């Protein structure tokens, strides 16, 4: 990735998948550097607090990635896909824990008026978004993946296109429609009764 060619990384991933532990040793620093690159691009480093938060985030994402079965990573594109998934899990896990901490129980209800706000949104907002995305993934897997890669994985339109082997133009168009769809589900609610899209 930053220090190796995509081909080399893909080869290492393949070797790891076959059980070559030394491939993993070479991958660790690359993966870490790659996650750092994405996080830094996403989080403008204007304050120390952010740098340090980014480090914590990268460490966590990295450890979750390292804990995964190597065989799941087929190539560099796959790595991006998996890391986007990991980022999504991190966000959702923490949002859920946060919601539970505040409520003292499992949070299912969506409450947009919650005062406890993270980066402009309450923890529950992210849970609702995740739920809406899960619905979208069911009816339209490609849109689901585009949202995951772009939103959770921090990938650009071009990178997303590369990962999914589609044109950047398709990514832009699908992204626009996915966004409208998610927005609608969040706004109208995501329970079966209130979700017109789910009614059939």
């Amino acid at each position, binding site marked *: 990735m930053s220090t190796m060619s995509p081909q080399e990384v893909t080869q290492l991933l393949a070797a790891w998948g076959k059980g070559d*532990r030394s491939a*993993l*040793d*070479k991958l*660790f*620093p690359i993966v*870490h550097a790659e996650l750092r690159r*994405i*996080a830094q691009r*996403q*989080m403008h480093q204007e304050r*120390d*607090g*952010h*740098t*340090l*938060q*980014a*480090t*914590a*985030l*990268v*460490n*966590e994402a990295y*450890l*979750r990635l*390292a*804990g995964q079965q190597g065989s799941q990573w087929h190539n560099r594109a796959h790595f991006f896909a998996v890391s986007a998934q990991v*980022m999504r899990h*991190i*966000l959702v896990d*923490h*949002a859920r*824990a*946060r919601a539970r901490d505040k409520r003292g129980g499992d949070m299912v209800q969506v409450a947009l008026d919650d005062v406890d706000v*993270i*980066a*402009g*949104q309450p*923890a529950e907002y*992210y849970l609702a*978004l995740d739920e809406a995305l899960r619905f979208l993934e069911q*009816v*339209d897997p490609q849109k689901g993946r585009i949202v995951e890669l772009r*939103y959770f994985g*921090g990938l650009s339109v071009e990178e997303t296109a590369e990962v999914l082997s589609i044109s950047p133009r398709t990514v832009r*168009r699908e992204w*626009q*429609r996915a*966004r*409208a*769809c*998610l*927005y*609608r589900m969040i*706004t109208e609610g995501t329970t079966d009764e209130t979700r*017109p*899209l*789910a009614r*059939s």
Partner: protein
Amino acid sequence: MKPDRWREVDEVFAAALERAPQDRAAFLDEACASDRELRREVEKMLAFDQQAEDFIQTDVFHVAAQLITERSDEPASKKSSSFSSHSIDDARFIPGDVLADRYRIVGLLGRGGMGEVYRADDLKLKQPVALKFLPESLTANGAALARFYREVSVARQISHRHVCRVYDVAEFAGQHFLSMEFVRGEELGSLLKRIGRLPQDKAIEVARQLCAGLAAVHERGVLHRDLKPANIMLDEHGDVRITDFGIAALAEELDQREKMAGTPAYMSPEQLEGHELTARSDIYSLGLVLYEIFTGKRAFEPVTFDELLRLRRSDSTPTSPAQHVPELDPLIERVIFRCLERDPAKRPSSALQVAAALPGGDPLAAALAAGETPSPEMVAAAPKQGALKPAVAISLLGAALLLLAFICFFSRATMLHRHVPLEKSPEVLRDRAAELVKKFGYTSAAADSIYGIGLDRRYLEYVRDTNPSPSRWQTLKSGQPAAIYFWYRQSPGSFDVSNGGDVDENTPARVLPGMTTITLDTLGRLRSFYAVPPQSAPAAETSSFDWSTLLKESGLDQANLQPVSPIWTPPHEATARAAWAGSYPDRPELKFHIEAAAFADKPVYFQILHVWDQAHDDPDNLTSPKQRALRVVATSRLYHRLDR
């Protein structure tokens, strides 16, 4: 909505988006025709698209990072020095304050167990630093403060990539503070709190780095005294940095027992009981940290200080780590339990031994990384029962046990074995050694003999220093030159060690005529040979020895050897000398020089020398007495006594 229907809506929605807003109504008239529900759905989507411009633009990385750091701060905020954003409102200093004409405060990083920690810029050295304020209890106690200054003066000499650098200690308005390296990272403690245990591969890596850092601290004679996850940082590269060695605990020592209640969870039994501490006390704490890294659980979960004391005083052992993590490598469990032995003497004697005992632990790499001598003990650092022990009574258990021990030694204790060919059992090598000694003309029966395994540290260091490739140890594969070698010595009389010491490769010295020492590489090829010539001079002053007898056994192609002038004096009296130069066929860049000597019709000396072999009186060698001492240490003491 059924997937088919969804696709229909989506297709019309997509086509509508392609058109200018004013053309969309006409398009929908045509596209939806009489399907009114379809039209309603698409119109809704178009409306939401208008409003969704700013939707999911939030930076999800910020959100996740914010959540993570907030959560990990919650339980730790009381005592942790977590480097995350803290309110500056009630801090003693505000950004912009300049302390001692040198440090400009940038912000408050946290409140540690000792006091406030600030991020600052060192105006003199133009680098970011962390300033740690010391508690009043320390600064008010003159003797303790003096001791603290002494500790700092030693600690600031420690420079290691896994140790947070200590720069200086200074005073401002009666407050003492420490300036140290500013590490961009987070505490291992808060990471563990968030994610539980580390994946095994990463945990092993963290454990190794911890061991290397701790070894570097110990090498300077500094004890950490308070090793725990909160004092271990993972920097921005995910690498370990040990902080607060020798310092935090010093402050706590001065405090009352009740005040300690928050931190003693990682103390060794001897520390809890107020006994003197050694490096092995830190090894105990290391064991507790490793337990937590690998399992995500604390080894002991005491509620109060007294309960902790009781837990530790009783012989209760912690729950087996494998109960928390069934797939845990048994080697890891074993090394953790060895660190947690109540009796310090039973714990590994160094952090490097711990590193070597971890799965895949390359003891030499660990040792060389930390700048320590890889003693054979370290090579054998792993399970005691696997290492060769002189006490193993060969006479009772027979050679089978020896073979077993040998196999255990190579299979468990070291990774070196993976790089060195080891087809031959020690018995085979011993028989071959004895046979060669006979072949060289030393036919009288041996009254005493002994053999063992040696490690050529100078060769390994040479590989480390000259070959930066990660696969450098692969070069050991040919077995020649030998990184691990087999040695055998025999004597016409008993080995006399009445002056003390154990019998080994070099002890007692070869003095008795007929004493021989031979070393072979692991494939049985001759590496060196020494013999003490007879005391009574031979009738003729000439030698009738055929050098090819020796050369043949070295496995080197004689056709490729160039006769040269001898340069090293033989260690024993000789009547003829010879020398050759050559290189290995598979590694032409590696040159060697062979020295040999004979007395009458028997060889007394044979040695294959390489660029890393220095004469004892070599000026370079003499200027570094430490290295000479280390070399002696590096000689194997793993041996078995035979025929006793």
